[in-house]
Structures are given as structure tokens and as C-alpha cells.
């Protein structure tokens, strides 16, 4: 492998890692910080992709579709928390698993009824559709760089919001001791409802942004769900920084695994997870970092 190819593969790794972070960051909020095991996270991602497909063909404008989709997602997340998840915080993980698994089935079936089972493509918006020439034969799609940019922004925003703002402090405190925060006069139920809605919105946003590259197809949520949990577990449950580092790590292992060790490419990230958990059972970073 010559230097150019190596550098392009590094770029691929970073870009894939950032995409993973985008998908997993919503789960970091809901599972990592709020402590709800949310198997339906992949379904939220899928909803995002289908929203991008439906809304962009309706509005004809990708940015408008994006904004509309986020608004719908916040509303959806808010209602979902109010109707279902708010009853689950005090309960066992098994009941959370049951509810969220049920949600997967309901959402899949709704998808099948409303949009059908065909594969769909979402066009890349014109102003992002070009490519930048790298190496001799390859061009790098601008849209992929755009995704990376969005991921970096989102990571910074989430980190700042949780670490530097008063609301972020309340959320982190709530994760440690719900009753105590409540007795200090903070409406923790409302706060969590909003955090949950944001978590759902981020997953939907990830699905919408990824849709032009990933295309839109049934069962797409299931394939990202497992990798999201791997990211959150490796990074340390509840750590934004950890999720970012874990995503990048997985990006590198997966990309170079595919190139150098094809036979084991599918297993490598799980080997990585096992190794890291043996070394640090808590994951790479502590909660709240």
C-alpha cells in the first residue's frame, strides 16, 4: 500500500467513524445518560431515512426537508416519552427491552404499510453533489465531507451543552440521582422528556443525513443498532467524548480490517470491544465526560 492510498484509507476511517458517532450519539443520550435501554434507536434512524425520502420528494429541497424532519422528530420523541418511556425509568431493564423491541415491530410494520418494501434513493442536493479529486483515479464525494462536518459540529455542541451549561449540569445530576435533583426544585420529568426528544431527533437527523449515501431500505435500522451499542459500550456509558473516540477507533479498525484481513473483518470490532472491556470494564471514559 503506497502512501496516497494509506492516507485515503485514513480519511475513509475518520469519515466512517464520524458517521458512526452521528448515529450513536442519540443513543449515548438516551441509553448512556438517561439509562434507558433503547433497542428502537435503529428504528428512529430508519424513520429519519424514510422522512428524508418522503419530505425531500415532497418539498423538493433537502434543507427544508431536514428542518421539517427535525421538528417532527422532536414532537415524536416528546410524545413517545410522555406516553411510554416516562413509565419505565423506575422499572427493570427487561421491561425497557420489551417495550422498545415492541416499538421496533410496530415501526417496521408501519413503514411497510405506509411506504412499502421497495428500496429507495434520496438524491444528494445539487450544491453538495460534486467530488474532490484525490489520488489519480478517485474522487471524494463532497457530501461525505459534509456529513463529517455535521458530525464534528454536533459532537462539539453536545459536549458543550452537557459540560458547560446549567441545563447540562441538571441532566448529569439527574443521571446520578433523580430524587435529589427533584427535591432541589427542578422539574426532572420535563427535563428528561426534552432530553429524550433531543435524543430521538439526533437519531432521526442521522438517518436523514445518511440517507443520500446509505439509500433507504427495509431493515436498515437493525443493521446500525448493534454497532451503536458497541460504540456506547466501548466509549463508556454516558460519555460523549468516549462515544466520539470509540467511533473513530471502530472506523479505523473496520476500514483497515477490510483491507488487510478480509476473512475476519466482520469480527474485528467485536474483538476490539472485548479487548477494551477486559482492560477497562467501564469503557474508555467515565460517565459525564
Amino acid at each position, binding site marked *: 500500500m503506497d502512501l496516497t492510498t494509506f492516507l485515503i484509507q485514513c480519511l475513509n476511517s475518520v469519515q466512517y467513524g464520524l458517521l458512526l458517532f452521528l448515529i450513536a450519539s442519540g443513543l449515548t443520550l438516551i441509553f448512556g445518560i438517561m439509562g434507558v435501554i433503547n433497542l428502537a434507536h435503529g428504528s428512529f434512524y430508519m424513520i429519519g431515512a424514510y422522512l428524508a425520502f418522503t419530505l425531500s420528494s415532497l418539498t423538493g429541497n433537502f434543507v427544508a426537508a431536514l428542518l421539517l424532519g427535525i421538528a417532527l422528530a422532536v414532537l415524536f420523541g416528546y410524545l413517545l416519552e410522555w406516553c411510554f418511556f416516562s413509565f419505565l425509568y423506575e422499572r427493570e431493564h427487561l421491561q425497557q427491552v420489551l417495550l422498545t423491541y415492541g416499538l421496533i415491530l410496530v415501526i417496521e410494520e408501519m413503514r411497510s404499510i405506509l411506504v412499502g418494501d421497495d*428500496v*429507495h*434513493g434520496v438524491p444528494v442536493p445539487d450544491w453538495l453533489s460534486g467530488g474532490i479529486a484525490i489520488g489519480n483515479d478517485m474522487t471524494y464525494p463532497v457530501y461525505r465531507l459534509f456529513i463529517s462536518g455535521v458530525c464534528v459540529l454536533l459532537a462539539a455542541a453536545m459536549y458543550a451543552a452537557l459540560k458547560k451549561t446549567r441545563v447540562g449540569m441538571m441532566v448529569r445530576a439527574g443521571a446520578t440521582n433523580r430524587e435529589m435533583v427533584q427535591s432541589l426544585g427542578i422539574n426532572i420529568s420535563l427535563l428528561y422528556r426534552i432530553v429524550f426528544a433531543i435524543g430521538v431527533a439526533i437519531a432521526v437527523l442521522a438517518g436523514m443525513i445518511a440517507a443520500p449515501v*446509505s*439509500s433507504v431500505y*427495509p431493515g436498515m435500522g437493525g443493521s446500525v443498532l448493534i454497532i451503536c451499542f458497541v460504540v456506547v459500550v466501548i466509549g463508556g456509558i454516558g460519555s460523549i467524548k468516549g462515544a466520539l473516540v470509540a467511533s473513530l477507533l471502530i472506523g479505523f479498525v473496520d476500514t*483497515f480490517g477490510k*483491507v488487510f484481513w*478480509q476473512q475476519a473483518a*466482520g469480527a474485528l470490532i467485536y474483538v476490539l470491544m472485548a479487548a477494551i472491556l477486559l482492560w477497562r470494564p467501564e469503557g474508555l471514559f467515565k460517565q459525564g465526560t
Partner: protein
Amino acid sequence: MNASKRQSAILAAAMFAASCLASTASAQAPGKVKVGLMLPYTGTYSALGTAIENGFRLYVQEQGGKLAGRDIEYFKVDDESDPAKASDNANKLVKRDQVDVLVGTVHSGVAMAMAKVAKDTKTLLIIPNAGADDVTGPLCAPNIFRSSFSNWQPAYAMGLVAATQFKHKTAVTLSWKYAAGDESTNGFKEGFESKGGKVIKHLHLPFPNVEFQALLTEIAALKPDAVYVFFAGGGAVKFVKDYAAAGLKDKIPLYGPGFLTDGTLEAQGAAADGLLTTLHYADGLTLPKDKAFRAAYEKSYKLQPDVYAVQGYDAAQLLDAGLKAANGDIGKREAVIKGMEQAKLDSPRGAFTMSRAHNPVQDIYLRKVENKTNQFVSVAVPALADPARGCKM
């Protein structure tokens, strides 16, 4: 309260008796042929399952609702494309419904399980899609037929065409690491290398991973003359788009079996324009039979037929040939099988016959993507027969 309870009990008993009567009646009625359709009616492949059933029923309708003078009774099971449930589902049709012939399915893993059940219970099986080479290879049996293709067929044809017609010297193959992907890329390699080409590298990634960027970079670094890939459904859409977005489409020609661009063109958009693929069916065939079939299908179902509908249609046609040879008596097993083996089917894809291992001996077409259709270009290989490796029959 009590009275109504008693009433409902009597009603239930009456219904039970009636159903017993009905089942004995149907058992005694002579000449009904029971067809068990085991197809995906839910999930990713549901559209394919429906197309196959539509095709099958269309042929039966065209014969006046009967095959060789016998009424057809359908039994349906949704196989969910789940290999884990495949044996149970097939046994339901064979043991519970006592079907005379099993028809199914799309998913290769499920079809393999069906083939095992058919072998054990000696039930007649017609496979209207699944392309696993093994079904008409090591698993072949007198009572197992296929009306579609083997993965080897379009792949081998593409290999020949890439080497002879397009004069490519080197190629890279790429697929998911699973049976169909391996069979297809091996078939291409066999055809390509038999005419002096060389597959310099076989790349694969775990199913159903769709992060292709690392492998596209690898392809750009290897600089082959051609790339052959096997993907279907969502993976096919994403790969074709990624390949174009990486700027490789105009530099290194991309080839594949027809599934790369069948049913996916709407989603692939301009990225698929001009792609060349091989399959046993194409748009723009000038055969009168195809024109008639397309018109009839559209009239019945208000839909354009696809390759899956053709395969379903031919499954019914194959059964018809067997029944006719046995004068409509499905019980005359030897005669039915002989009739099916010797059938010359007038298919919308063009006439074809059955190979020794019961796989179609058929023309493989080279097609080009134009205006979101797979337009016929030429016959890549006429009357191509699967080698049926491992078949002892």
C-alpha cells in the same frame, strides 16, 4: 345467558362437522391438484413473492383455470425469508395440507431447506427463484426442478463477455461473504479466466455491511480493467451510487449479474445509467411470447411484470407439462417427472429446456441500463447449461 352459550356450542359443533365434511369432500373429489405456494409475503422480498404468485396464477388462468384438465387448489404459507422456519413451513404444506407440489421460494437458504424436505418426503418441488448452485448440484433429485437460474449462469456469461467482447485482461471481484456472493464471483472468474483474463483480487465484506469506501479505495489502487460485483436490494443501490460518487464509474467499467440493476433502478438513478449486466430476462426483448405475456400481466394485475413474474409463470408451465404427460394424474409420479424433464417451455424469456439436473438451459442476455430499464443488447451466451457439479442423477 345459558341459552346463548349452548347455542354457540351447538354452532361450533355444527361448524366442526361441516369442516370435516368439507375436508372429506375435497379428499374425494377427483382430479384436484394441490399446489403449495411457499413464498415470502412479508419482509424485504414480499414484492418478489407476490410477483411469482401472480405469474403462476396468470398461466393457470390462461389455461382456463385448469392444468391438464385438473382444477388447481392453492395453499399458501408465508416463508418470511427465514431459513430457521423453513423446514416447519414446508412440512406444514406437505404433511398438514398434503400438497401434491411445492412451489418456492426466493431466499436461497429457505430453498435449500425446502429441497431437503422435498427429498425426504418425495414431494415434487419447483423453485421459482432461489439461485443457489447446490439445489441443482449436490442436492439435486428427480423430484426437484428449478424454473429460474443458477447463480453460476449469469456470472459465467458475464465473465466470457468481459474477456472476449470487451477485451478486458484483469478484473477485481467483490461481494458479500455468503454463499450466493461466492457462487457468483466464482462463476465470473471461471468464465473470465477461461478466455485468458485474470481475476487479480477477490474482495469481500461481511453481509450485510454496506460501508464500501475502504474497498473502493482498494479498487482504485489495484487499477483493474474491470470490476464484477454481486449485490442485491439495498446493497446494490448503495454500491452503484458509491461507485459513481467515487469517480470510478467512468474509469473502470462495472459489471454484475442482473440483480445489480433489477428492481433498484428507480433508487439508483443516474448512477446506474449505462451499466451492463447479464441475466436470463431483459426489457425490450422482441419475442412475441414476451409481448403477449407483458400485455396479459398488465391487464390482470395493473403492473409491469418483472423477471420474478416470468419465473412464476414458467413454474406453472413446467407443472402443466408434467401433468399433461401423465394425462392429468399427479399420482403417476414417473410420467409427471419425465414430462417435466422433456418439456420445451415457451417462456417470455425465450424458449428453454431442462438440464439433466433440472435447471433451465437458457439464453443469457447482455443488458444495458437505459431510461430506468434493462434494455436487451445481445445474447451473451445462447443455451447456457449449469455444469451441475456434484449432482449424481
